[in-house]
């Protein structure tokens, strides 16, 4: 039985979903999730290492190590997976077979990117579960020890103090920002891979952008401060400030880890900034890719 002839649509969520699902499947079958084991070992290791510390110190080290590792691992995962996708499809000529079907190039890019976003999302969720699990387990151990050793009169206050130092729901916005940062970096990596000739070049440039992104704030402040540099330098600094994302903004996660409550307005501002830069990079990637000779 033959399927009925489809009517071509200029934009098809079904085609994009097929590409995203295929990308996710490709990365999952490449066994990229094995790194979660490494993450778990790190978090569990840091939990064992700090048993002689006070419970506040133990929880703080766990939060610092856990959130820091989620941030680094999700960035690395997004970077390496995205850097591989396009050059691999070009080299293996699978790109020809896909684009010889009625698939617009922007749908191909979008599908690939959404597949990576899904992968990062699953990875961040899994790492967060491991992190929360280890933190929760340690909390239960400390609670039990405290219940045994604390006089009944002080127990309620002591237990409340422990609970306040352990996993708090205000960590979730921090995890969301870590995800957004990884997504933003993955999109920039995709943009580079649309004109790069190799995965190695893409990875190197992305790492440089990541590093520049963390000092970009200094450039912007210099530009806005109107220092006494030459106009050419000012233009260059302004360009750096505009082109590179200010990744330092996402370091607010460090504040969240020490228990600082971040105002929702600030959270949404950073989210808006991340989404805007992601969309702009995606658009530029599409423009570059649509003119590329295959």
């Amino acid at each position, binding site marked *: *039985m033959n399927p009925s002839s*489809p009517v*071509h649509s200029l934009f098809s969520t079904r*085609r994009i979903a097929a590409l995203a699902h295929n990308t996710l499947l490709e990365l999952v079958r490449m066994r990229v999730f094995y790194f979660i084991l490494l993450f778990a070992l790190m978090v569990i290791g840091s939990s064992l290492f700090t048993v002689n510390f006070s419970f506040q110190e133990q929880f703080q080290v766990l939060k610092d190590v856990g959130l820091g590792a989620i941030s680094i691992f999700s960035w690395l995962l997004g970077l390496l997976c995205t850097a591989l996708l396009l050059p691999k499809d070009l080299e293996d000529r699978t790109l020809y*077979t896909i684009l010889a*079907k*009625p698939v617009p190039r922007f749908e191909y890019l979008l599908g690939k990117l959404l597949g990576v976003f899904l992968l990062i999302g699953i990875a961040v969720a899994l790492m967060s579960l491991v992190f929360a699990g280890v933190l929760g387990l340690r909390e239960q151990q400390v609670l039990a020890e405290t219940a045994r050793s604390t006089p009944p009169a002080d127990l309620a206050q002591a237990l409340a103090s422990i609970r306040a130092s352990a996993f708090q729901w205000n960590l979730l916005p921090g995890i969301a920002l870590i995800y957004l940062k990884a997504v933003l970096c993955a999109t920039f990596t995709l943009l580079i891979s649309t004109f790069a000739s190799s995965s190695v070049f893409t990875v190197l440039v992305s790492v440089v952008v990541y590093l520049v992104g963390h000092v970009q704030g200094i450039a912007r402040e210099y530009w806005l401060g109107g220092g006494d540099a030459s106009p050419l330098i000012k233009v260059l600094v302004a360009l750096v400030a505009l082109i590179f994302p200010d990744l330092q903004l996402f370091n607010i996660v460090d504040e969240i880890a020490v228990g600082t409550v971040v105002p929702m307005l600030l959270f949404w501002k950073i989210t808006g900034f991340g989404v805007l830069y992601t969309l702009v990079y995606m658009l530029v990637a599409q423009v570059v890719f649509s003119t590329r000779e295959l």
Partner: protein
Amino acid sequence: MSTPAISIRNLTKEFAIPFKKERLVAVRNLSLEVPEGEVYGLLGPNGSGKSTAMKIVLGLVTPTEGTTAIFGCDSRRVESREQVGFLPENPYFYKFLTALETLLFFGKLCDLRGSALKDHAYSLLKTVGLENAADRRLGGFSKGMLQRIGMAQALIQNPRLLVLDEPTAGVDPAGSREIRDLILQFKSQGITVLLCSHLLGQVQEVCDRIGILHHGSLIKEGRIEDLITLENQTQLVLENASPALLAELEKRAREGGATVIGEGRPKADLEQFFLRVTQFNS
């Protein structure tokens, strides 16, 4: 007159050479038409511009000058690819997918779905002889099997035009013959085929017309019989002819003013011999 399946008009493609002023002309003022239902062979030595011309027809490369159209629709438009199935040379598909998953993936890219897509995928696997490998990953496929799954994915949306780039490259003679038979089957179903191949014997067997590209230009085009028939020569094949009869024929030919250029025993071609021997011993 119906719209041609492929229409190429004054096509030129130049590539910039890095750090040089001059440009590489891959295709030079190429014009040709392939009517619907025809099997057209595009021939030429390596670097003659075949692949570039094919990529332009498929909308993968933008022409410097000229136009290409598929059933009247400009190749640069995405919808022109609705009617095309493409099998690239030495196709590499996603090795992590099974044969069935590969066909379902390409079907979904053509906006097909549901049980109709699944049934069609199974029927195509049967057509190309891979029904027993439906759940095997492509990473373990031989070159011939990859070529066959490539053929199946090219057919997934029931295209009216098939573009086949070296469809039998690296395939054993039996597999090559099967692919040839498939092309003949498509022809009988009215599917237009644009075939690029270096196996001239096979091209001769399946193509209605051919075009020969050299240095980016079309230097010859026409029906195969017209191009290769030697008009001033006649071949006579006899069975059980005695030496005396042959001598008599030769003498009569000379008397009639003809020249006998050669004489010998006709031979089966190597492919036929190979297939006969391997089938007999299997």
